[in-house]
């Protein structure tokens, strides 16, 4: 048993290799931190009383019909982040993207026929916030402001 332990220690005793892997792991962590920190998500729980004090993007919140087969979590949200995944279907022209911004993961259902931004691209979308089928938060994008 002791012999095996000594052999394992000897095999792992490669300080130069582990120094390189530590630097790579530090770079990975920094990349993830920087990538996840950028962007933002603004959630508007209820419809604002008047347009005077609302942000300019709020006008797009009523530009469509909220889907009835989902639970609505908030009146509207504006998500700004990096695209990390995308799916298409089932209907033609229907696509969803997963967006990371401000350390939040949000699904965005793009307007039918909208261009799907590439992985790593920036997306800004506005629409009601609903609960997606898989339990994540989903913005039903009425308007794509960037991407």
């Amino acid at each position, binding site marked *: 048993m002791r012999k095996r332990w000594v052999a394992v220690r000897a095999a792992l005793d490669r300080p130069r290799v582990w120094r390189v892997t*530590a630097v790579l792991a530090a770079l*990975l962590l920094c990349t993830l931190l920087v990538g996840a920190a950028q962007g933002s998500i603004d959630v508007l729980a209820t419809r604002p009383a008047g347009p005077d004090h609302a942000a300019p993007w709020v006008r797009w919140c009523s530009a469509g019909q909220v889907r009835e087969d989902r639970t609505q979590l908030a009146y509207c949200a504006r998500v700004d982040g990096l695209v990390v995944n995308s799916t298409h279907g*089932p209907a*033609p022209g229907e696509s969803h993207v997963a967006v990371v911004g401000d350390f939040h993961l949000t699904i965005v259902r793009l307007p039918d026929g909208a261009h799907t931004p590439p992985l790593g691209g920036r997306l800004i979308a506005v629409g009601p916030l609903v609960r997606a089928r898989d339990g994540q938060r989903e913005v039903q994008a009425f308007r794509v402001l960037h991407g």
Partner: protein
Amino acid sequence: MRWLAATLVLLAASAALLLGIFLRDRDTAWQLPPRATAEFDAKWVMTYVAGPTCGKRCSYTVLANPRADHWLARIVDRSRTTCVDIDVGRFDVSSAHGISGIQVIDCRSLPGPDGA
């Protein structure tokens, strides 16, 4: 050995960050109402059977829920009708394996114009 420890700590921190972001806003107890899930799955089956450009020539109807997690649906592609038993618990779509969790059944066993 301290560099190995540093590597492991940094990798664990990266994994924890990703997991935290993934779980942060997720409602793990959330489930769609069963009928809404079946409707969604039936729409996928229709797209799979009839193709993505079928449009208004195709339709789907969820008809019955004979037992837990199983929904019977009729898919109409122009004049061709296909009936399926969708297991919403196992239903999945992937580019590698196509659609899983469905079984084609005899339309005559369904309520409606094709069946009793």
